[in-house]
């Protein structure tokens, strides 16, 4: 049976990791490499690493750094930030990224998702969608780290991205991000209902119960979280233990049998 993944999200800005609230008020939380090492040692299910300034500043993805991070990472690594073309994707994959994550560039050029999926397979193309709930109740998409409003609802965009070949959708609630008040379950469920690819819930996890809700109530295939792991005593391993107790299938770490 396929296990539900608990995915720490590492947001990377300049030379270190940061974490904000509502895509703002960034706090430094330490250097990247030691964090990757620790998560690798703790055998997390997967890591998502995003350079949050790359698109805003039109920077190229930093393949050199990715190479360093990937060297310490023997669990799946998804890398995002600043990706605008196929050559960059190829370089990132060669640098040790297993999947790539595209957000802003997809709005300007939806065909990028299609060509990436054709060339590298849907399974390595994750599309990240940042969403704000508007006063009228609609969920609208935002690009460039939440700074630019896009004229589409999350339902339309998620479906379109799936049709273009996205293999996974990472959906983040901008308002919930960093608040640790829980995922926006309505948002997650809307996306789960309009696509057939796996949906990763993001934005707002503050405790293990929030993760359980995103999975069992909203139907997410995986939960991503950052603040809860940076700022509280809660860990990915603790999350998986709590989820298992609630009946959610999670991965058990490998223990070699005696005599081997």
């Amino acid at each position, binding site marked *: 049976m396929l296990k539900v993944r608990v995915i720490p999200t590492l947001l990377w800005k300049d030379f270190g990791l940061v974490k904000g609230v509502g895509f703002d008020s960034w706090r430094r939380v330490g250097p990247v490499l030691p964090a990757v090492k620790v998560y690798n040692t703790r055998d997390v*299910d997967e890591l998502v690493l995003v350079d949050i300034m790359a698109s805003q500043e039109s920077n190229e993805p930093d393949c050199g750094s990715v190479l360093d991070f990937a*060297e310490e990472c*023997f669990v799946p690594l998804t890398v995002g930030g600043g990706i605008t073309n196929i050559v960059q994707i190829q370089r990132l994959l*060669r640098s040790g990224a297993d999947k790539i994550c595209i957000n802003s560039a997809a709005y300007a050029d939806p065909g990028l998702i299609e060509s990436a999926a054709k060339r*590298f397979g849907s399974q*390595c193309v994750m599309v990240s969608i940042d969403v704000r709930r508007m006063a009228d109740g609609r969920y609208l998409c935002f690009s460039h780290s939440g700074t630019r409003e896009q004229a589409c609802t999350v339902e339309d965009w998620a479906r379109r991205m799936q049709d273009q070949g996205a*293999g996974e959708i990472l959906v983040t609630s901008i308002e919930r991000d960093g608040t640790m008040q829980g995922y926006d379950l309505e948002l997650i469920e809307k996306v789960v209902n309009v696509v057939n690819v*796996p949906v990763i819930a993001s934005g707002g996890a503050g405790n293990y119960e929030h993760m359980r809700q995103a999975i069992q109530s909203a139907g997410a295939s995986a939960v991503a979280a950052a603040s809860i792991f940076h700022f509280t005593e809660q860990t990915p391993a603790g999350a998986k233990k709590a989820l298992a107790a609630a009946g959610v299938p999670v991965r058990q770490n490998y223990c070699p049998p005696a005599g081997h």
Partner: protein
Amino acid sequence: MIVSIVDYGMGNLASVQRALLELGATPVVIDAPEQLRESDRIILPGVGSFGDAMDLLQGRGWVDAIHDQVLQHGKPLLGICLGMQLLAQSGNEGGGDTPGLGLIPGEVIHLSELGCTLRVPHVGWNAITSASQLQPSPLLAGIPDGTDFYFVHSYAFRTQQSLHLLASTDYGIPVAAAVGSGLVFGAQFHPEKSSRAGFRLLKNFLELTSC
């Protein structure tokens, strides 16, 4: 031990290389088929689509060189993910049947064509079960049933004969997780990304003795 990682322009080679280094092997990323001669083991990685990959392998002369090294010189080969699928006789990704390397009888088809009704791609950690309880493959030594590996794929290998299926995983339907024929092996999951369990499998591959 020299382990050649075939670089035909697809896939994440760094992770495989790094995992093999950790295990004490000498991994070499090779981009010319002649270099296969120097190797003790061959790894065929791959991310991408079946048709594109076969085009690249054909165009650069890999197909004959791989056949020669594996079939004539008995070098063990491990295909990973798409690399495993390429071992089949054919694949229909991208429309139409594309001939594969033909090292293991079978075909590669979409998960939904196999009858899978769950979300595709099949992404994440899933448990494998050895196909033969009496005689598990040496590739799976020390890996008990129920061990989770990292999968990420939309197409799957359907072996023609059950003896070539080494392990399967359950994604609503049984899906081939590992295949093998003689010294040719394939893993649908990514051992290089499956943490300790994956290292164990790669170690088994390095320690294979000629059958």
